[in-house]
């Protein structure tokens, strides 16, 4: 986008050349008065027009509109252009006291790539060069720019063979000598000499620029951008006012700090003559500008309000004063800048809140919540290098590709550490979770490879010494051995000793504001899949409205595994009942913590769903031969489709009552402290209405028992997962026993396709995607035609049996924007996803609501 946004349209036919040469020269700021827009003026001419209209200082110059640009190749038009720029700038070419040169550039109706490079230093001649160098106080920059201009003109306007020019550049490294050689080569091989006359130089430069624009390379670039092959460009002649290097220069600035997103000009400037690629490390921060940054700030703020986008400007410094060379909305501003600006504009009333929400996509929300190392303050920082490839990772140090491949083959996460990288390190980098190098920068080969492989990387960590013989790496005095764990963050460049946990960053304040506005727009509820109180707290901080899925499996693992094992393998009922009581007590504690964390919000607790084999001892690990035998009898060929979920509960009849009693008792205890979670009890893996009816009976019995014991009638809803195709087809019948459904779309996808997820993800899905059978993994994006159709059908049947039945989705699809849009379109009540996807889901639901407003929003209550 430029100051005036415009589509690349067909071009206005050329104006007939009129009697007066230069009639079509348009000084900056006068295009609109003459009825010209970006199609004729190019984005640059239109932008300069706008800057003048906003009262901002601009560099003197003029535009040759696209339709007549070619006439600048004519001597008389070029003469008129030179005279006009001299007049506009109040200087004359060849004046040794206040010298002036010209810069020629091109621009198209929209921002595009592949324009010819600017040709600067026009108007210079060997006899006048020393005067200019004396004014500047240096010569390299001037000669360098001059050399590239002569080279372009020689190649594209004077037909000097490329090979001759290449040789001259390779054999003559010094810029001054280069100019001399090039000028003599032009005299020898060119169709004419390189002239001293400024107007003749300008006319030749225009021909070179248009020649380059017509070259095969430029045509290829237009094709790649799907631009018209014959797209015409406007030409611009700008004053290049030469002054002492100490008080003159050029720079760029953006309106916002990329780290915080706040309004605060950021950029750098260079002293001396403007070059296309300033030498590295010579830029200076804006606060070193002798004339101050007030005018720059004013310009950036004015432009930002006008364009409603973070902006960038190029500026020139002459005698410590700033004037603008170019200005535009940043094509891809830093995310935080966009978010901050959207919030700022909406707060000022310059933008509606809905519009502000619309500006930030769910993918951008995800990007802002990137994983990072969880720091507690007690970490040992080993070294800080350059942030070379984003991402956080932790793993064991390896010092060679060989070791990396060995350990990675065992499934160990490793971090390759190398002082410097050669091709021999590439296989190790590919096998590692992250890469750390002692030399090289963010553009080193190692960094390029790490990013190409999607691995986090920190490069150029100074003071890192690898000793391959000793198998150690030193960070200053600190010695780390191969195999020791380290953690690194490729966004900050920090490397820590030990294994740190990797977690999602919290939203920055301005994003929280936008997400709150998004909450005001969306219809779909967003809950979290969380099993413990700690997970619930994290998710609530990220904006979850409740828990859509609490898996109770973890309550039976770890040190409780022997208890559930005794329930399943007990030789007699007494042993089993003892184990059940112990389990109930442990679960009661878990539920109390969970419900306290949930507060007065909805929480869906799924009764035990795990497949039986997860609880059985490995062969040979049972307590005695009899137990070994009972365990062997229970082992299944296909546990995921065997004794699992409600099926297990129907065989072990005390399981669900014990779980439900623990849950209800916990609720009664928590209610006594004034907290009343909206409890939803969910039965998993149902495919027969009879299964659900029987399980519902257990839950009712448990509620009655708790009421009898405590005097508290616990309010709850009873519902079921819909995760088998049969359950979806029989939704109407199931709805007679259920007050809510939660679609377990992970299992529903497996069972609808007949895919075993782990197996197909390894072997099938990539090939199907390559062949175009699938556009995305159905485990990531809900398959709208098959699985989605089952969900739609189940929703319809359930609603006709029980109007107002609560419907949600608790698979991983609950965090995928496209799947969320699908759920919202079906009018489901909520999606439930893992904590780190909650903000994404909030934004995705809001975007869908804004995209597809529903006339009747009363159809479903959340």
């Amino acid at each position, binding site marked *: 986008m430029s100051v005036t946004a415009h589509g690349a349209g067909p071009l206005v036919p050329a104006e007939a050349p009129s009697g007066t040469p230069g009639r079509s020269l348009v000084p900056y700021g006068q295009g609109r008065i003459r009825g010209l827009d970006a199609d004729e003026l190019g984005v640059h001419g239109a932008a300069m027009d706008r800057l003048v209209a906003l009262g901002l200082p601009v560099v003197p110059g003029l535009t040759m509109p696209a339709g007549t640009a070619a006439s600048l190749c004519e001597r008389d038009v070029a003469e008129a252009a030179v005279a006009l720029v001299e007049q506009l700038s109040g200087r004359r070419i060849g004046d040794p006291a206040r010298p002036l040169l010209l810069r020629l550039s091109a621009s198209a109706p929209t921002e595009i790539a592949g324009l010819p490079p600017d040709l600067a230093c026009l108007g210079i001649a060997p006899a006048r060069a020393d005067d200019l160098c004396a004014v500047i106080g240096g010569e390299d920059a001037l000669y360098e720019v001059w050399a590239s201009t002569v080279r372009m003109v020689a190649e594209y306007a004077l037909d000097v063979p490329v090979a001759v020019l290449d040789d001259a*550049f390779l054999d003559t490294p010094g810029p001054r000598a280069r100019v001399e050689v090039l000028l003599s080569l032009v005299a020898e091989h060119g169709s004419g000499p390189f002239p001293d006359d400024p107007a003749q130089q300008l006319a030749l430069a225009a021909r070179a620029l248009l020649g380059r624009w017509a070259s095969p390379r430029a045509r290829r670039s237009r094709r790649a951008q799907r631009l018209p092959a014959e797209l015409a460009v406007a030409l611009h002649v700008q004053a290049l006012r030469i002054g002492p290097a100490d008080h003159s220069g050029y720079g760029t600035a953006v309106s916002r700090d990329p780290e915080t997103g706040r309004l605060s000009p950021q950029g750098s400037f260079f002293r001396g003559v403007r070059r296309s690629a300033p030498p590295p490390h010579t830029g200076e921060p804006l606060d070193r500008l002798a004339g101050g940054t007030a005018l720059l700030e004013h310009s950036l703020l004015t432009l930002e309000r006008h364009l409603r986008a973070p902006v960038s400007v190029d500026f020139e410094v002459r005698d410590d004063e700033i004037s603008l060379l170019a200005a535009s909305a940043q094509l891809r501003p830093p995310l935080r800048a966009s978010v901050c600006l959207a919030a700022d504009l909406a707060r000022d009333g310059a933008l509606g809140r809905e519009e502000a929400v619309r500006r930030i996509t769910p993918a951008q929300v995800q990007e802002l919540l990137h994983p990072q190392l969880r720091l507690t303050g007690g970490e040992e920082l080993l070294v800080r290098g350059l942030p070379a490839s984003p991402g956080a990772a932790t793993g064991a140090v390896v010092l060679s590709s060989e070791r990396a491949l060995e350990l990675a083959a065992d499934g160990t996460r490793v971090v390759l550490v190398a002082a410097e990288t050669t091709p021999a390190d590439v296989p190790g980098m590919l096998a590692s979770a992250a890469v750390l190098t002692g030399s090289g920068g963010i553009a080193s080969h190692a960094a390029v490879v790490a*990013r190409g492989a999607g691995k986090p990387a920190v490069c150029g960590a100074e003071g890192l010494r690898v000793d391959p013989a000793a198998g150690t790496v030193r960070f200053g005095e600190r010695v780390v051995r191969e195999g020791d764990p380290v953690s690194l963050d490729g966004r900050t460049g920090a490397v820590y000793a030990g294994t740190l946990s990797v977690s999602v960053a919290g939203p920055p304040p301005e994003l929280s504001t936008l997400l709150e506005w998004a909450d005001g727009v969306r219809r779909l509820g967003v809950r979290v899949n969380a099993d413990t109180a700690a997970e619930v707290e994290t998710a609530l901080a990220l904006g979850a409205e409740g828990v859509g899925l609490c898996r109770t499996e973890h309550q039976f693992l770890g040190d409780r595994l022997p208890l559930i094992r005794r329930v399943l393998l007990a030789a007699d009922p007494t042993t089993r009942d003892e184990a059940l009581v112990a389990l109930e007590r442990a679960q009661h504690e878990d539920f109390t913590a969970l419900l306290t964390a949930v507060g007065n919000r909805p929480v869906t607790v799924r009764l035990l769903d795990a497949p039986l084999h997860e609880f059985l001892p490995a062969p040979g690990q049972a307590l005695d031969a009899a137990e070994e035998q009972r365990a062997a009898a229970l082992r299944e060929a296909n546990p995921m489709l065997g004794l699992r979920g409600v099926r297990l509960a129907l065989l072990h009849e005390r399981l669900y009552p014990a779980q439900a009693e623990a849950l209800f008792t916990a609720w009664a205890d928590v209610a006594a402290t004034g907290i009343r979670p909206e409890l939803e009890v969910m039965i998993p893996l149902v495919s027969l209405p009879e299964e659900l009816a029987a399980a519902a009976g257990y839950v009712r019995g448990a509620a009655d028992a708790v009421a009898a014991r405590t005097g508290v009638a616990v309010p709850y809803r009873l519902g079921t997962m819909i995760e088998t195709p049969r359950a979806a087809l029989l939704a109407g019948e199931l709805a007679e026993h259920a007050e809510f459904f939660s679609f377990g779309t992970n299992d529903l996808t497996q069972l609808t396709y007949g895919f075993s997820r782990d197996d197909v993800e390894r072997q099938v899905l990539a090939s199907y995607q390559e062949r175009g059978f699938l556009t995305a993994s159905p485990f990531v994006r809900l398959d709208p035609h098959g699985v989605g159709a089952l969900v739609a059908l189940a929703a319809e049947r359930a609603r006709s049996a029980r109007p107002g039945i609560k419907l949600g989705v608790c698979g991983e699809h609950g965090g995928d924007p496209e799947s969320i849009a699908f759920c919202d379109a079906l009018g489901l009540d909520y999606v439930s996803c893992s904590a780190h996807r909650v903000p994404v889901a909030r934004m995705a639901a809001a975007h869908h609501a804004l995209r597809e407003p529903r006339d009747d929003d009363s159809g479903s209550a959340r």
Partner: protein
Amino acid sequence: MQSAAVDLPDASDEPLAEAVVDLVLRGMWRGRPESEHRPLVDAGLAMVKGPVVLPTERAKAAAAQILRVPAGSEQEERITAAYEAFLPVNRRIRDVCTAWQCRPDGTANDHSDDVYDAGVRESLEDVHESIQPVLRRLDRVLAGSGQYLTALEAALDRFDDGALEWLASPLCDSYHTVWMRLHQELLLVLGISRAEDEAREEELVTRSRG
């Protein structure tokens, strides 16, 4: 057999010498038939790690010795001139790959912006235009180095056909992969260490200031 520190493959065993150089410059082989790597493994020049074949330290030393041109020779001088012309372009290709992978603000380039990508492609063209005369000169003084221009052009063609990984992916003979191999060969041919290389590149790039 040489008495030098490194036990080189027999000079008469040209295929073995060629193979060890290729393996070292590539850093690894993947998916090569066993008949190709078996002789190297038997000679202690390669090791097999799962699907990957890696050069041993001995192989690296051997390749360095095979490739090194005589110190102080005219050939060394001419290759050094090409190498010094290579270094500033070497900086630029890494910048181009970086711009291809990351936007200027450090976020990943998701290739949704045609204009940005076309701009990177333009700078790649600048790099390609600059490296061609360098490689043509190198070809005259270093046997076999002509293959690099061919391979770079092949990568560029595939990239222009829409296979975007052919610019910077380490998993194929992408433009960057080939470039890295060329760089490594120059270092071994001239016996220059990575640290020296970095210092020299920095010096050449920052030479012009005023």
